[in-house]
């Protein structure tokens, strides 16, 4: 009903606001009159827009009898075909960006709420406001210049000056120092540790020319896996839970043992199915390992083991993609300028190699996704910080603390779950909003998605195409709102749909 109304309004607005004949009317060509007549016939321009709308609607209603017809574009292509090509492109762009932005924003927002009124909190608040005020097209152009062109130049002569190493390490040190917080002495200890670690890493990267032939290798993977095991345990079930810790460490060990066999599988049977199977195997192993370690309380231990296993498997996957880097940058299409600024794929790159193709997709995704993340990150930091602070002031949190639960359980079980309620409905809205808002990102980075279609439609006064794009976006909003409501009522037992 609402869709009907809004599409009716947009159709008429667009029809009255645009004049596809304007260019021809001004031309002095002899055939102009004939062209006008032809175009008028083709687009039914002699029918007034409100009535023409129903002609369009008839095609749309064909949907119910299996005969959808959204008309043709001015180039004579079918609107459905154009949309079917553009939707996956936009979804790919927006989905990755939204998920990353949500995860990152939640983490930063939660930490900033837990450290309310600390240096870190003030820093995050300022960062959020700054990101909130950035025009996306400006950021996108900057990213293009500094992350792509300059970085490619850097790669042709890779050498990190010591001055930059120091500056970068200072920033990292300040970040970790204020993140872990505490008294002044503690701040400086953390700062020194982070500074030294980062400096050594950069130095090692520079010495080994890692960025020309990156990869993690089995030792780094082992190190990182153990780190992941400890990290996941301490958040998911508490570091004092020995069984969970051992289960997680076993998973990490298994991942390392599996490193070489996995290489063989990846090289010979590379496909999305293999990757999917890998995840399935990891999850079942996780359940099995948890069963091995404990007879009671299997749920939380299995959770810890599975999360650790999937993260470690992900590491191996990243390592495999990185191994293709050298080959990728050496291909003719890339020619040692691996960070692209334009388009969603390299057309010249003709290869059947699974990893090369995926690396190409990832490289093209990086910059536009980064731009979108920067813009939507601000909102998530603010929302999650506000939501958590609101929840922490509730009585049930005080009760939980009063009955002696430790702070980890209070935050992860009591506060985190309740804080996710309002955020879950925001997620849907944000996703839908970004699909419409990706117009500018698509334009700057030359992606052939929904936004580009919309702009093309407006510029060529292509009413059918415009309506197609518009219909799809409005449809997404309506479905998104419905989903958000359903999700909310499913998650929150206090809300029941009234009969």
């Amino acid at each position: 009903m609402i869709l009907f109304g809004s599409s009716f309004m947009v159709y008429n607005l667009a029809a009255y606001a645009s004049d596809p004949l304007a260019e021809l009317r001004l031309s002095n060509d002899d055939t102009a009159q004939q062209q006008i007549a032809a175009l008028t016939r083709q687009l039914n321009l002699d029918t007034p827009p409100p009535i023409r709308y129903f002609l369009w609607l008839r095609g749309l209603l064909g949907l119910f009898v299996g005969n959808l017809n959204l008309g043709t574009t001015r180039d004579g292509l079918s609107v459905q075909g154009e949309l079917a090509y553009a939707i996956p492109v936009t979804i790919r762009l927006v989905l990755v960006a939204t998920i990353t932005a949500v995860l990152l924003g939640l983490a930063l927002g939660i930490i900033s709420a837990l450290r309310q009124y600390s240096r870190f909190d003030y820093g995050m608040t300022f960062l959020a406001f700054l990101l909130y005020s950035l025009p996306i097209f400006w950021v996108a152009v900057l990213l293009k210049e500094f992350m792509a062109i300059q970085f490619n130049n850097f790669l042709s002569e890779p050498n990190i000056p010591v001055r930059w190493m120091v500056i970068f390490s200072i920033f990292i040190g300040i970040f970790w120092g204020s993140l872990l917080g505490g008294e002044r002495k503690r701040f400086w200890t953390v700062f020194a540790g982070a500074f030294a670690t980062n400096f050594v890493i950069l130095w090692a990267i520079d010495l080994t020319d890692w960025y020309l032939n990156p990869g993690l290798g089995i030792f780094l993977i082992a190190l990182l896996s153990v780190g992941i095991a400890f990290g996941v345990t301490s958040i998911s079930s508490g570091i004092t839970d020995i069984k969970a810790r051992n289960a997680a460490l076993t998973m990490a060990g298994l991942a390392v043992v599996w490193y070489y066999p996995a290489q063989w599988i990846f090289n010979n049977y590379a496909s999305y199915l293999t990757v999917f199977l890998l995840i399935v195997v990891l999850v079942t192993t996780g359940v099995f390992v948890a069963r091995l370690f404990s007879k009671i309380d299997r749920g939380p231990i299995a959770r810890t083991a599975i999360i650790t296993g999937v993260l470690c498997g992900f590491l191996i996957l990243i390592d495999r993609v990185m191994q293709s880097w050298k080959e990728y940058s050496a291909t003719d299409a890339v020619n040692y300028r691996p960070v692209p600024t334009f388009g969603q794929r390299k057309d010249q790159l003709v290869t059947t190699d699974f990893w090369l193709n995926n690396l190409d997709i990832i490289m093209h995704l990086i910059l536009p996704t980064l731009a979108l993340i920067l813009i939507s990150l601000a909102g998530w930091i603010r929302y999650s910080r506000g939501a958590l602070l609101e929840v922490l002031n509730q009585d049930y949190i005080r009760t939980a603390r009063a009955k002696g639960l430790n702070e980890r359980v209070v935050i992860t079980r009591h506060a985190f779950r309740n804080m996710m309620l309002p955020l879950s409905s925001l997620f849907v809205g944000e996703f839908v909003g970004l699909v419409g808002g990706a117009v500018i990102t698509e334009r700057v980075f030359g992606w052939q998605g929904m936004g580009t279609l919309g702009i093309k439609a407006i510029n060529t006064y292509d009413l059918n195409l415009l309506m197609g794009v518009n219909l799809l976006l409005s449809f997404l909003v309506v479905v998104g709102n419905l989903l958000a409501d359903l999700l909310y009522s499913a998650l929150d037992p206090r809300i029941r749909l009234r009969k």
Partner: protein
Amino acid sequence: MSLFKRKEKATGEILAGGESAIANKEVEGLSQGQIVRRRFFRHRAAVGALIILTSLILFVMTALDTKIGPIRIPGWWKWTTEDIPALRFEDCPGGTTGCPTLSLKPGSSFGMGTHPFGQDDIGRDYFALVMNGARRSLMIMFVIGAVAGFIGVVVGSIAGFYGKMVDAVLMRLVDFIQTVPTIIIAAVIGKAAGKVGPLYLALFLGILGWTGLARLVRAQFLSLREMEFVDAARVAGASNIRIAFKHILPNAVGQIIVAVTLIMAGAILTETALSYLGFGVVAPDVSLGLLISQYESSFTTRPWLFWWPGLFIISIALCVNFIGDGLRDAFDPRQRRRITKKDRLQAKVQAKAGA
């Protein structure tokens, strides 16, 4: 796990009566407006933003000539957007032309120079262009804020005050405008309205931007009209209009002001984005978004053409956002000032002196 560690309060710091006593003492005998003003002026970032924004507006508005009908107020800047002075060639990096003369290095070159922001392709002074663009963008921002604010408040209060059928109809209207993808429809309108003039563009964008505010005002009205003071006013014989405007609206004004500032911060980004896409303000008129889009490709060689308009957009939007945040804190009755160590100490001293 240090992430979850709470900051422990020293027991000695918590005094009899606790923190709320300190906070309550401060607002004793003050009117609502005074409390809000006090709270706002204590928000350092917001006050800073307010000062910067005010000076920025004054700076931008007085830089160029202003024409109000036949009256012409001369600006203090020596070039206008129509002047085409000679292009500067000397001292420019990499054989470019028209580089900025602004120099912050102490010494003989310190100062604004003839063209502090540089010159564009044909030699027009970029400072004048940026000032003109900022002026357009500011004007559009305020018009959108005013139009969207007005419609949002009127629709929201009617829907919330009368409820039932009126509410249902108006809220369906809101739903229906919200389903229209903003950028797409704004681009359609912008393409048609941009040629007519930036003022019309701003009006149209304002007509699209009021829905969120209307929802907010409606929710406020729905809860406020059930309050006892509304019943009291009705018993005293006040008319509907009087109740709505004299009794309910002043109670909702805090949220409205905050929402309007946020609309304005969003508006300047929408306008510049539209102009960037070519659907907003169109040449020969100037806007910050348009400037960026025109000189996007020359970023590698002449970055100043790109930096300055962007910096102006960011500083305006950032200031408005900070002011909005300060206002929200000031109007929020649940929000109490953070009690600092100094306050505790003072309260202690006073308590001792009292005893």
